[in-house]
Protein backbone atom coordinates (compact mmCIF):
# COMPACT_ATOMS: atom_id res chain seq x y z
CA UNK A 1 0.00 0.00 0.00
CA UNK A 2 1.36 3.41 -0.91
CA UNK A 3 1.00 6.63 1.10
CA UNK A 4 -1.72 8.07 -1.13
CA UNK A 5 -3.96 5.05 -0.74
CA UNK A 6 -3.19 4.83 2.98
CA UNK A 7 -4.12 8.46 3.58
CA UNK A 8 -7.39 8.09 1.72
CA UNK A 9 -8.34 5.31 4.13
CA UNK A 10 -7.34 7.08 7.34
CA UNK A 11 -10.70 8.77 7.97
CA UNK A 12 -12.58 5.52 7.52
CA UNK A 13 -10.01 3.84 9.76
CA UNK A 14 -10.60 6.38 12.53
CA UNK A 15 -14.33 5.55 12.31
CA UNK A 16 -13.63 1.82 12.27
CA UNK A 17 -15.30 1.41 8.89
CA UNK A 18 -12.58 -0.54 7.09
CA UNK A 19 -12.75 -4.17 6.16
CA UNK A 20 -10.41 -6.55 7.92
CA UNK A 21 -8.04 -6.84 4.98
CA UNK A 22 -7.92 -3.06 4.37
CA UNK A 23 -7.26 -2.46 8.03
CA UNK A 24 -4.51 -5.03 8.05
CA UNK A 25 -2.76 -3.53 5.03
CA UNK A 26 -3.11 -0.02 6.44
CA UNK A 27 -1.65 -1.01 9.81
CA UNK A 28 1.29 -2.64 8.05
CA UNK A 29 1.90 0.57 6.12
CA UNK A 30 1.56 2.74 9.24
CA UNK A 31 4.22 0.71 11.02
CA UNK A 32 6.76 1.68 8.43
CA UNK A 33 5.62 5.26 7.59
CA UNK A 34 5.97 8.03 10.18
CA UNK A 35 4.35 10.61 7.84
CA UNK A 36 1.16 8.58 7.58
CA UNK A 37 1.21 7.88 11.32
CA UNK A 38 1.13 11.62 11.94
CA UNK A 39 -1.67 11.97 9.42
CA UNK A 40 -3.56 9.22 11.24
CA UNK A 41 -3.32 11.16 14.48
CA UNK A 42 -4.77 14.21 12.75
CA UNK A 43 -7.61 12.16 11.31
CA UNK A 44 -8.43 10.78 14.74
CA UNK A 45 -8.35 14.22 16.34
CA UNK A 46 -10.62 15.59 13.66
CA UNK A 47 -13.04 12.71 14.00
CA UNK A 48 -13.29 13.28 17.75
CA UNK A 49 -13.56 17.04 17.34
CA UNK A 50 -16.43 16.65 14.88
CA UNK A 51 -18.35 14.19 17.01
CA UNK A 52 -18.02 16.39 20.09
CA UNK A 53 -19.29 19.58 18.52
CA UNK A 54 -22.08 21.03 20.66
CA UNK A 55 -25.68 20.22 19.83
CA UNK A 56 -28.12 23.05 19.58
CA UNK A 57 -31.77 22.90 20.59
CA UNK A 58 -34.86 24.36 19.06
CA UNK A 59 -36.93 27.00 20.79
CA UNK A 60 -39.27 25.66 23.45
CA UNK A 61 -42.41 26.86 21.75
CA UNK A 62 -41.59 24.95 18.54
CA UNK A 63 -44.19 22.22 19.17
CA UNK A 64 -46.85 24.73 20.22
CA UNK A 65 -46.38 26.73 17.00
CA UNK A 66 -46.39 23.52 14.97
CA UNK A 67 -49.62 22.20 16.44
CA UNK A 68 -51.24 25.57 15.99
CA UNK A 69 -50.29 25.52 12.30
CA UNK A 70 -51.54 21.96 11.86
CA UNK A 71 -54.79 22.87 13.59
CA UNK A 72 -55.28 25.90 11.34
CA UNK A 73 -54.08 24.23 8.16
CA UNK A 74 -56.77 23.69 5.51
CA UNK A 75 -58.00 20.13 5.28
CA UNK A 76 -57.61 20.05 1.52
CA UNK A 77 -54.83 18.06 -0.07
CA UNK A 78 -51.64 20.03 -0.60
CA UNK A 79 -50.51 20.77 -4.10
CA UNK A 80 -46.88 20.17 -3.19
CA UNK A 81 -45.99 16.53 -2.69
CA UNK A 82 -43.98 15.24 0.21
CA UNK A 83 -41.07 13.32 -1.18
CA UNK A 84 -41.51 9.74 -0.28
CA UNK A 85 -38.37 7.77 0.38
CA UNK A 86 -37.26 5.78 -2.59
CA UNK A 87 -34.99 2.83 -2.94
CA UNK A 88 -31.45 4.03 -3.61
CA UNK A 89 -30.77 3.65 -7.33
CA UNK A 90 -28.23 1.20 -8.69
CA UNK A 91 -24.94 2.68 -9.82
CA UNK A 92 -25.66 1.88 -13.49
CA UNK A 93 -29.03 3.61 -13.41
CA UNK A 94 -27.51 6.57 -11.53
CA UNK A 95 -24.75 6.97 -14.09
CA UNK A 96 -27.24 6.65 -16.97
CA UNK A 97 -29.43 9.30 -15.33
CA UNK A 98 -26.47 11.65 -15.16
CA UNK A 99 -25.88 11.25 -18.87
CA UNK A 100 -29.57 11.33 -19.79
CA UNK A 101 -29.42 14.66 -21.69
CA UNK A 102 -26.42 13.49 -23.72
CA UNK A 103 -28.08 10.14 -24.46
CA UNK A 104 -31.30 11.90 -25.51
CA UNK A 105 -29.46 14.26 -27.87
CA UNK A 106 -27.48 11.38 -29.39
CA UNK A 107 -30.64 9.34 -29.86
CA UNK A 108 -32.37 12.23 -31.60
CA UNK A 109 -29.38 12.78 -33.88
CA UNK A 110 -29.13 9.07 -34.72
CA UNK A 111 -32.87 8.91 -35.44
CA UNK A 112 -32.72 12.03 -37.57
CA UNK A 113 -29.73 10.68 -39.48
CA UNK A 114 -31.37 7.28 -39.97
CA UNK A 115 -34.50 8.96 -41.22
CA UNK A 116 -32.57 11.17 -43.63
CA UNK A 117 -30.68 8.30 -45.20
CA UNK A 118 -33.65 5.94 -45.15
CA UNK A 119 -34.69 4.73 -48.63
CA UNK A 120 -38.21 5.90 -47.81
CA UNK A 121 -36.95 9.46 -47.76
CA UNK A 122 -37.47 12.23 -45.22
CA UNK A 123 -41.23 12.32 -45.57
CA UNK A 124 -44.08 12.39 -43.17
CA UNK A 125 -47.13 10.20 -43.47
CA UNK A 126 -49.30 11.34 -46.30
CA UNK A 127 -46.43 12.94 -48.15
CA UNK A 128 -47.04 16.35 -46.61
CA UNK A 129 -43.36 17.17 -46.38
CA UNK A 130 -42.47 16.01 -49.85
CA UNK A 131 -41.64 18.80 -52.25
CA UNK A 132 -43.44 18.63 -55.55
CA UNK A 133 -41.25 17.27 -58.30
CA UNK A 134 -38.98 15.24 -56.05
CA UNK A 135 -37.86 12.19 -57.97
CA UNK A 136 -38.24 9.46 -55.44
CA UNK A 137 -38.19 5.90 -56.69
CA UNK A 138 -40.35 3.16 -55.30
CA UNK A 139 -38.27 1.07 -52.98
CA UNK A 140 -40.58 -1.08 -50.93
CA UNK A 141 -41.06 -4.74 -51.41
CA UNK A 142 -44.73 -4.14 -52.02
CA UNK A 143 -43.80 -2.87 -55.46
CA UNK A 144 -42.03 -5.36 -57.71
CA UNK A 145 -39.48 -3.65 -59.87
CA UNK A 146 -38.93 -5.71 -62.98
CA UNK A 147 -36.75 -3.85 -65.39
CA UNK A 148 -38.31 -0.50 -64.68
CA UNK A 149 -41.87 -1.86 -64.66
CA UNK A 150 -43.22 -1.17 -61.28
CA UNK A 151 -46.23 -3.29 -60.47
CA UNK A 152 -48.21 -3.33 -57.33
CA UNK A 153 -48.14 -6.75 -55.78
CA UNK A 154 -51.50 -7.89 -54.64
CA UNK A 155 -50.39 -9.76 -51.56
CA UNK A 156 -47.99 -6.98 -50.67
CA UNK A 157 -50.81 -4.52 -50.51
CA UNK A 158 -52.54 -6.43 -47.82
CA UNK A 159 -52.22 -4.66 -44.55
CA UNK A 160 -51.50 -1.33 -46.16
CA UNK A 161 -53.27 1.94 -45.96
CA UNK A 162 -52.66 4.02 -49.04
CA UNK A 163 -52.73 7.74 -49.10
CA UNK A 164 -52.47 10.23 -51.89
CA UNK A 165 -51.19 13.65 -51.11
CA UNK A 166 -52.72 16.81 -52.52
CA UNK A 167 -49.46 17.56 -54.25
CA UNK A 168 -50.85 15.36 -57.01
CA UNK A 169 -47.34 14.41 -58.10
CA UNK A 170 -46.94 11.74 -55.45
CA UNK A 171 -48.84 8.81 -54.14
CA UNK A 172 -47.88 7.33 -50.85
CA UNK A 173 -48.40 3.91 -49.36
CA UNK A 174 -48.23 3.81 -45.60
CA UNK A 175 -47.76 0.74 -43.47
CA UNK A 176 -50.42 0.37 -40.82
CA UNK A 177 -48.00 -1.63 -38.78
CA UNK A 178 -45.51 1.12 -38.03
CA UNK A 179 -46.59 4.14 -40.04
CA UNK A 180 -43.56 3.99 -42.31
CA UNK A 181 -43.85 5.21 -45.85
CA UNK A 182 -43.25 2.17 -48.01
CA UNK A 183 -43.68 3.32 -51.58
CA UNK A 184 -43.69 6.64 -53.21
CA UNK A 185 -44.62 6.96 -56.81
CA UNK A 186 -43.41 9.73 -59.02
CA UNK A 187 -45.74 11.53 -61.45
CA UNK A 188 -44.54 9.37 -64.27
CA UNK A 189 -45.07 6.16 -62.35
CA UNK A 190 -48.46 7.35 -61.25
CA UNK A 191 -49.41 7.98 -64.84
CA UNK A 192 -48.24 4.48 -65.66
CA UNK A 193 -50.01 2.68 -62.87
CA UNK A 194 -52.83 5.02 -62.11
CA UNK A 195 -54.16 6.03 -58.75
CA UNK A 196 -53.68 3.56 -55.87
CA UNK A 197 -57.41 3.39 -55.77
CA UNK A 198 -57.24 1.45 -59.03
CA UNK A 199 -54.64 -1.02 -57.85
CA UNK A 200 -55.83 -4.59 -57.59
CA UNK A 201 -57.00 -5.41 -54.11
CA UNK A 202 -57.89 -1.84 -53.26
CA UNK A 203 -61.62 -1.64 -53.41
CA UNK A 204 -62.56 0.92 -50.86
CA UNK A 205 -61.68 4.56 -51.37
CA UNK A 206 -62.23 6.98 -48.57
CA UNK A 207 -61.60 10.67 -48.65
CA UNK A 208 -60.68 12.17 -45.33
CA UNK A 209 -60.63 15.94 -45.35
CA UNK A 210 -59.60 18.27 -48.13
CA UNK A 211 -55.90 17.58 -47.81
CA UNK A 212 -55.67 13.92 -48.69
CA UNK A 213 -57.37 10.89 -50.08
CA UNK A 214 -57.07 7.66 -48.24
CA UNK A 215 -57.31 4.30 -49.87
CA UNK A 216 -58.12 1.50 -47.53
CA UNK A 217 -57.97 -2.17 -48.33
CA UNK A 218 -61.06 -4.03 -47.25
CA UNK A 219 -58.91 -6.63 -45.53
CA UNK A 220 -57.25 -4.06 -43.30
CA UNK A 221 -58.67 -3.73 -39.85
CA UNK A 222 -57.40 -1.55 -37.05
CA UNK A 223 -56.59 -4.67 -35.13
CA UNK A 224 -52.84 -4.98 -34.58
CA UNK A 225 -53.04 -8.77 -34.61
CA UNK A 226 -54.63 -8.87 -38.04
CA UNK A 227 -52.24 -6.33 -39.43
CA UNK A 228 -49.34 -8.43 -38.21
CA UNK A 229 -50.70 -11.40 -40.04
CA UNK A 230 -50.94 -9.47 -43.26
CA UNK A 231 -48.22 -10.21 -45.80
CA UNK A 232 -45.60 -7.49 -45.90
Amino acid at each position, binding site marked *: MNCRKAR*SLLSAFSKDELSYSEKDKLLQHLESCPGCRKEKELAEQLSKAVSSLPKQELSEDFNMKLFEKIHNAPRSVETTRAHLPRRAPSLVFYRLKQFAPAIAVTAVLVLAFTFMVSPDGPNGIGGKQIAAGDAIQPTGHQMADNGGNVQPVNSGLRGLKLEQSMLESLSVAVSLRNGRILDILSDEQKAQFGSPGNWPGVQNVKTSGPSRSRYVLPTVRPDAGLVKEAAY
Partner: protein
Amino acid sequence: MKRDKSLNRDKMSDLDLMRRVQKDDMVAFNVLVNRYKNRLFNTLIRMLDSAEAVEDILQETFIRVHQHRMSFDFRYAVSTWVYTIALNLARNELRRRKRINFVDIADFSNRLEAPEEKIDNGSKIKEVVEKSVKKLPHKYRQAFILRDFDNLSYEEIAQILSVPLGTVKSRVNRARNMLRNMLKPNMEELYELSKGSVFTLGIL
Protein backbone atom coordinates in the same frame (compact mmCIF):
# COMPACT_ATOMS: atom_id res chain seq x y z
CA MET B 1 -58.47 12.82 21.10
CA LYS B 2 -58.67 11.19 24.48
CA ARG B 3 -55.28 10.25 25.81
CA ASP B 4 -54.78 6.60 26.50
CA LYS B 5 -52.65 6.48 29.65
CA SER B 6 -52.00 2.77 29.39
CA LEU B 7 -49.78 3.40 26.34
CA ASN B 8 -46.23 4.55 26.83
CA ARG B 9 -45.60 6.21 23.56
CA ASP B 10 -42.09 7.33 24.49
CA LYS B 11 -40.96 3.71 24.39
CA MET B 12 -42.69 2.91 21.14
CA SER B 13 -40.77 2.32 17.94
CA ASP B 14 -41.03 4.91 15.18
CA LEU B 15 -43.18 2.60 13.10
CA ASP B 16 -45.60 1.94 15.97
CA LEU B 17 -45.83 5.67 16.56
CA MET B 18 -46.53 6.20 12.88
CA ARG B 19 -49.35 3.63 13.01
CA ARG B 20 -50.88 5.60 15.84
CA VAL B 21 -50.35 8.88 13.99
CA GLN B 22 -52.31 7.41 11.12
CA LYS B 23 -55.15 6.93 13.59
CA ASP B 24 -54.96 10.66 14.42
CA ASP B 25 -53.13 10.14 17.71
CA MET B 26 -51.63 13.60 18.23
CA VAL B 27 -49.77 12.50 21.36
CA ALA B 28 -47.90 9.94 19.28
CA PHE B 29 -47.22 12.64 16.70
CA ASN B 30 -45.83 14.88 19.43
CA VAL B 31 -43.47 12.10 20.54
CA LEU B 32 -42.32 11.67 16.95
CA VAL B 33 -41.69 15.40 16.60
CA ASN B 34 -39.68 15.44 19.83
CA ARG B 35 -37.64 12.49 18.62
CA TYR B 36 -36.53 14.19 15.41
CA LYS B 37 -36.78 17.94 15.82
CA ASN B 38 -33.40 18.59 17.46
CA ARG B 39 -31.56 16.03 15.34
CA LEU B 40 -32.89 17.66 12.22
CA PHE B 41 -32.22 21.13 13.57
CA ASN B 42 -28.55 20.31 14.10
CA THR B 43 -28.32 18.75 10.66
CA LEU B 44 -29.94 21.62 8.80
CA ILE B 45 -28.24 24.43 10.71
CA ARG B 46 -24.95 23.17 9.29
CA MET B 47 -26.35 23.41 5.80
CA LEU B 48 -28.33 26.63 5.96
CA ASP B 49 -26.63 28.72 8.61
CA SER B 50 -29.80 30.48 9.72
CA ALA B 51 -31.68 29.22 12.78
CA GLU B 52 -34.81 31.06 11.72
CA ALA B 53 -34.87 29.51 8.25
CA VAL B 54 -34.17 26.06 9.70
CA GLU B 55 -37.01 26.41 12.19
CA ASP B 56 -39.39 27.35 9.37
CA ILE B 57 -38.24 24.35 7.34
CA LEU B 58 -38.76 22.04 10.29
CA GLN B 59 -42.25 23.38 10.87
CA GLU B 60 -43.03 22.70 7.23
CA THR B 61 -41.42 19.26 7.44
CA PHE B 62 -43.62 18.12 10.32
CA ILE B 63 -46.71 19.68 8.80
CA ARG B 64 -46.05 17.59 5.69
CA VAL B 65 -45.40 14.49 7.77
CA HIS B 66 -48.77 15.00 9.38
CA GLN B 67 -50.60 15.85 6.18
CA HIS B 68 -49.17 12.89 4.30
CA ARG B 69 -49.24 10.43 7.19
CA MET B 70 -51.63 8.15 5.32
CA SER B 71 -49.25 7.81 2.39
CA PHE B 72 -46.35 6.64 4.56
CA ASP B 73 -44.91 3.39 3.28
CA PHE B 74 -44.15 1.04 6.16
CA ARG B 75 -41.42 -0.70 4.18
CA TYR B 76 -39.21 2.31 4.91
CA ALA B 77 -37.93 3.79 8.14
CA VAL B 78 -39.69 6.83 9.54
CA SER B 79 -36.31 8.52 9.94
CA THR B 80 -35.63 8.14 6.20
CA TRP B 81 -38.97 9.71 5.36
CA VAL B 82 -38.64 12.64 7.73
CA TYR B 83 -35.04 13.33 6.68
CA THR B 84 -35.97 13.14 3.00
CA ILE B 85 -38.70 15.73 3.40
CA ALA B 86 -36.51 18.04 5.49
CA LEU B 87 -33.52 17.82 3.16
CA ASN B 88 -35.65 18.43 0.09
CA LEU B 89 -37.08 21.53 1.70
CA ALA B 90 -33.58 22.65 2.68
CA ARG B 91 -32.40 22.11 -0.88
CA ASN B 92 -35.27 24.25 -2.17
CA GLU B 93 -34.29 26.97 0.27
CA LEU B 94 -30.67 26.83 -0.88
CA ARG B 95 -31.79 27.12 -4.50
CA ARG B 96 -33.98 30.09 -3.64
CA ARG B 97 -31.06 31.76 -1.88
CA LYS B 98 -28.82 31.14 -4.85
CA ARG B 99 -31.33 32.88 -7.08
CA ILE B 100 -31.69 35.85 -4.73
CA ASN B 101 -27.96 35.84 -3.96
CA PHE B 102 -27.97 36.42 -0.21
CA VAL B 103 -24.98 38.03 1.44
CA ASP B 104 -24.41 36.87 4.96
CA ILE B 105 -23.63 40.00 7.00
CA ALA B 106 -21.95 37.99 9.74
CA ASP B 107 -19.66 36.36 7.22
CA PHE B 108 -18.90 39.69 5.64
CA SER B 109 -17.94 41.38 8.93
CA ASN B 110 -15.88 38.33 9.93
CA ARG B 111 -13.98 38.61 6.70
CA LEU B 112 -13.28 42.26 7.35
CA GLU B 113 -12.17 41.72 10.91
CA ALA B 114 -10.32 38.46 10.59
CA PRO B 115 -8.94 37.76 7.16
CA GLU B 116 -7.02 34.77 8.46
CA GLU B 117 -8.42 32.25 10.86
CA LYS B 118 -6.39 31.96 14.00
CA ILE B 119 -7.00 29.58 16.84
CA ASP B 120 -7.02 31.49 20.13
CA ASN B 121 -8.71 29.10 22.51
CA GLY B 122 -10.79 25.97 22.83
CA SER B 123 -14.03 27.48 21.61
CA LYS B 124 -12.21 28.77 18.56
CA ILE B 125 -11.43 25.17 17.62
CA LYS B 126 -15.11 24.36 17.40
CA GLU B 127 -15.64 27.45 15.33
CA VAL B 128 -12.87 26.53 12.91
CA VAL B 129 -14.21 23.01 12.49
CA GLU B 130 -17.77 24.29 11.98
CA LYS B 131 -16.61 26.86 9.45
CA SER B 132 -14.58 24.30 7.56
CA VAL B 133 -17.59 21.96 7.37
CA LYS B 134 -19.61 24.79 5.84
CA LYS B 135 -16.93 25.31 3.22
CA LEU B 136 -17.35 21.78 1.88
CA PRO B 137 -19.23 21.51 -1.43
CA HIS B 138 -22.92 20.89 -0.79
CA LYS B 139 -23.16 17.27 -1.92
CA TYR B 140 -20.13 16.23 0.15
CA ARG B 141 -21.25 18.29 3.15
CA GLN B 142 -24.71 16.74 3.09
CA ALA B 143 -23.39 13.17 3.09
CA PHE B 144 -20.74 14.01 5.70
CA ILE B 145 -23.22 15.65 8.10
CA LEU B 146 -25.69 12.79 7.84
CA ARG B 147 -22.97 10.26 8.54
CA ASP B 148 -20.71 11.93 11.07
CA PHE B 149 -23.10 14.23 12.90
CA ASP B 150 -26.31 12.24 12.69
CA ASN B 151 -24.68 8.81 12.71
CA LEU B 152 -27.07 7.52 10.06
CA SER B 153 -26.11 4.33 8.30
CA TYR B 154 -24.75 4.50 4.75
CA GLU B 155 -27.86 2.64 3.55
CA GLU B 156 -30.18 5.20 5.12
CA ILE B 157 -28.20 8.07 3.61
CA ALA B 158 -28.35 6.43 0.19
CA GLN B 159 -32.14 6.27 0.46
CA ILE B 160 -32.49 9.81 1.75
CA LEU B 161 -30.28 11.33 -0.94
CA SER B 162 -31.43 8.92 -3.67
CA VAL B 163 -27.90 8.06 -4.66
CA PRO B 164 -26.17 4.66 -4.82
CA LEU B 165 -24.56 3.28 -1.69
CA GLY B 166 -21.06 3.42 -3.18
CA THR B 167 -21.53 7.07 -4.06
CA VAL B 168 -22.50 7.89 -0.49
CA LYS B 169 -19.43 6.10 0.87
CA SER B 170 -17.17 7.88 -1.55
CA ARG B 171 -18.73 11.28 -0.80
CA VAL B 172 -18.35 10.82 2.93
CA ASN B 173 -14.74 9.70 2.60
CA ARG B 174 -13.98 12.54 0.20
CA ALA B 175 -15.55 15.07 2.57
CA ARG B 176 -13.55 13.76 5.52
CA ASN B 177 -10.31 13.96 3.54
CA MET B 178 -11.15 17.45 2.26
CA LEU B 179 -11.88 18.58 5.79
CA ARG B 180 -8.62 17.10 7.06
CA ASN B 181 -6.68 18.89 4.33
CA MET B 182 -8.50 22.13 5.06
CA LEU B 183 -7.75 21.93 8.76
CA LYS B 184 -4.26 20.57 8.41
CA PRO B 185 -2.51 23.95 8.79
CA ASN B 186 -4.42 24.50 12.03
CA MET B 187 -4.19 20.97 13.35
CA GLU B 188 -0.70 21.29 14.76
CA GLU B 189 -1.84 24.31 16.66
CA LEU B 190 -5.02 22.49 17.66
CA TYR B 191 -2.95 19.65 19.00
CA GLU B 192 -0.82 22.02 21.06
CA LEU B 193 -3.91 23.77 22.37
CA SER B 194 -5.38 20.47 23.39
CA LYS B 195 -2.84 20.29 26.16
CA GLY B 196 -4.24 23.43 27.78
CA SER B 197 -7.81 23.73 26.60
CA VAL B 198 -10.72 22.48 28.66
CA PHE B 199 -12.65 21.71 25.49
CA THR B 200 -9.95 19.77 23.80
CA LEU B 201 -8.93 17.96 26.95
CA GLY B 202 -12.41 16.57 26.90
CA ILE B 203 -12.24 15.41 23.35
CA LEU B 204 -8.63 14.48 22.70
